[in-house]
């Protein structure tokens, strides 16, 4: 009952005109970012961050959260209608969504995505509200070994869940952790890898790594390809509308819907795994356990509902570790964490006691955002896909500028522009040599937290690292971390041996 009351108070705050306006802007921006192939959801949220510097904390978080949630939905339009996935999240929608559109049912395919985003998003938001309080209470009992174990689990899961080489992902992660050590360390005050340069003595902000590697790196990669993305075919323009599925049709996909919602929430909670992972895992689960798995890829509703439900429900999941433990569950929540810190608030178990109304207002904003984005998607779809007509070279030039202004505005330091340019080049090289960027970024974000909890643990337990496996909670999480890392390697070795035998 208390939860409902608090949520009601939160809703009243969100419905204040200024907050509602910010939420609306966030939804529009999130959708635009998701529709444009050159801009990713995380990049979009990064670029919006500098605009929040002069806002209060609540509108800032509302703006970024609204962008985050609508970004998981907007890309579905172009994936289904034009076979252009605006985001990696939307790639699984190409298989069944685009196939359904090709069979003459684009409106139906769009209707299924709307249902999936709305249903999955609302279920996850409800779970988030119900779970956050108890998780925060539980997290209050955590000590440094538990925190360190959770971070290790998050870092290993980002390595094992991605596509591409695990070695490269591991190297990327280690580079991120190393970048986080640059500057004056917080315990001894010793200077590490700063080479006497003042701007390095302050450390390398993870924001610079993110903006550089994700934003500039992506622009450089696309520039090398001559900004060759294609706009939509003109003849589809007049046919764009959404046809919602009937209750009977929804009843037929309820298992897929519930399974994908659960997958989205769980993947969202795992630190480091975001909407893209959720979308792929849900589609994969459908291929393995779905009733119509044999027809998957031929344009069936289950193939649309599974990835879209999981992608949107991962948002609610990802906000749980952020708000209850201060650990971001995805790239976008890492930036939201940055917005909290810029406003002098450290999310974590204490925030429920000290800033309860703020937390519930954030919860309420997620509900409003999900409903708002679906209404917007239903009515404004024709207008949204028009942004595909914008020339990529023009959009990219402005993306670079936003990257620079965002980086500069954080500390008013021109040296930071050199840092993000360097990370932009590094991001391009990562892409070129197939090193994933996400582990490096997550390593940079969680590195200081990992080191401080490790050092505190070593001091508190007389340099006895076995405490990690001596305490039940940390032991279970460490086992999960090892399994997360070893399982994909072991599975592929087994498949390879089976192939050799055959």
């Amino acid at each position, binding site marked *: 009952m208390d939860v409902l009351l608090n949520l009601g108070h939160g809703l009243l705050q969100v419905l204040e005109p200024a907050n509602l306006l910010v939420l609306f802007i966030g939804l529009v921006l999130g959708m635009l970012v998701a529709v444009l192939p050159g801009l990713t959801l995380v990049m979009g949220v990064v670029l919006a961050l*500098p605009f929040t*510097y*002069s806002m209060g904390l609540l509108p800032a978080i509302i703006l970024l959260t609204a962008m985050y949630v609508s970004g998981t939905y907007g890309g579905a339009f172009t994936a289904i209608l034009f*076979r252009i996935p605006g985001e990696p999240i939307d790639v*699984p929608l*190409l*298989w069944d969504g685009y196939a359904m559109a090709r069979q003459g049912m684009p409106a139906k395919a769009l209707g299924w995505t709307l249902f999936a985003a709305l249903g999955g998003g609302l279920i996850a938001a409800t779970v988030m509200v119900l779970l956050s309080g108890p998780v925060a209470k539980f997290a209050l009992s955590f000590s440094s070994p538990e925190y360190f174990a959770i971070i290790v689990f998050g870092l290993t899961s980002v*390595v*094992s*869940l*991605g*596509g*591409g*080489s*695990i*070695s490269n992902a*591991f190297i990327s992660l*280690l580079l991120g952790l*190393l970048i986080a*050590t640059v500057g004056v*360390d917080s315990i001894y005050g*010793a*200077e*590490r*890898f700063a080479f006497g340069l003042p701007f390095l003595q302050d450390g390398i902000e993870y924001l610079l790594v993110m903006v550089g590697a994700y934003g500039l790196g992506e622009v*450089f990669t696309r*520039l*090398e390809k*001559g*900004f*060759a993305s294609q706009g939509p075919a003109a003849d589809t323009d007049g046919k764009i509308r959404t046809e919602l599925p009937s209750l009977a049709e929804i009843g037929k996909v309820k298992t897929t819907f519930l399974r994908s919602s659960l997958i989205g929430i769980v993947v969202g909670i795992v630190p480091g795994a975001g909407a893209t*992972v959720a979308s*792929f*895992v849900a*589609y*994969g689960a459908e291929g393995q356990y779905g009733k119509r798995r044999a027809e998957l890829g031929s344009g069936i509703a289950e193939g649309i509902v599974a990835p879209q439900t999981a992608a949107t429900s991962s948002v609610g999941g990802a906000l749980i570790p952020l708000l209850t433990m201060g650990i971001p569950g995805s790239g976008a929540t890492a930036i939201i964490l940055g917005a909290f810190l810029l406003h002098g608030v450290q999310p974590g178990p204490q925030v429920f006691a000290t800033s309860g109304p703020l937390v519930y207002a954030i919860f309420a904003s997620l509900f409003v955002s999900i409903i708002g984005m679906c209404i917007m998607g239903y009515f404004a779809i024709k207008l949204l896909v028009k942004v595909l007509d914008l*020339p990529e*070279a*023009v959009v*990219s*030039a*402005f993306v*670079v*500028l936003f990257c*620079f202004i965002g980086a500069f505005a954080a500390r*008013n330091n*021109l040296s930071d*522009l050199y840092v993000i*340019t360097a990370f*932009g*080049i590094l991001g*391009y090289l990562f892409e070129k*040599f197939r090193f994933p960027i996400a582990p490096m970024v997550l390593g940079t974000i969680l590195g200081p937290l990992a*080191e401080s909890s490790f*050092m505190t643990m*070593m*001091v508190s337990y007389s*340099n006895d690292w076995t405490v990690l496996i001596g305490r039940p909670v940390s032991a279970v999480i460490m086992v999960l971390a090892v399994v997360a890392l070893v399982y*994909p390697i072991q599975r*592929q070795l087994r498949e390879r041996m089976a192939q050799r035998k055959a």
Partner: protein
Amino acid sequence: MLNRLWRAAPYIVLQLAAMYFYQLAGSIDYPATPGRIGPDFWPKAILVLLGLVCVYEIIKNVLVGESFTAAGLLEKLMKESAAGQGEEKLPAYPLRLAGGIGLTILYVATIDKIGFFLATSAYLALFMVIGRYRQWGVIAAASLLGSLLLMFIFMKLVYVSLPLGVEPFSAVSVGLLSIMGVR
């Protein structure tokens, strides 16, 4: 053999960097406390792990010539997606890339001297040209109006103090700011 060396090249570079930084970590200056690990422990542990992974990859690629790569759990699905989309190989424009990177570095190096507005207008226009865009009217309008709009948003609304440049360029920035009503 050349092919194997090319595959191992990033790992060789990273291995050398790891060794260099390990040496640097050994010379971190701090007041040591008996029985406590110092600020060099954490970076050294990271560098040892980095070195081990690189050595594994170098041996695998150069000496064994092994093509097996343990991949993340999404690899199979992503490969299917690439196959499903029938991804075409796009032509590469390395000179455009080099030009774009060079222009970006030049922008960073000169923004302090010539000010945000002039540097940004020039950067936007040239970047669009390097990016193979040739609608000159759009380029001129987007770069000039875009720079003005960004200047207005950040200096008037978000209160970010963007560089004004030095004389004589600062006169342009100051003039525009006074028109916008920014003091």
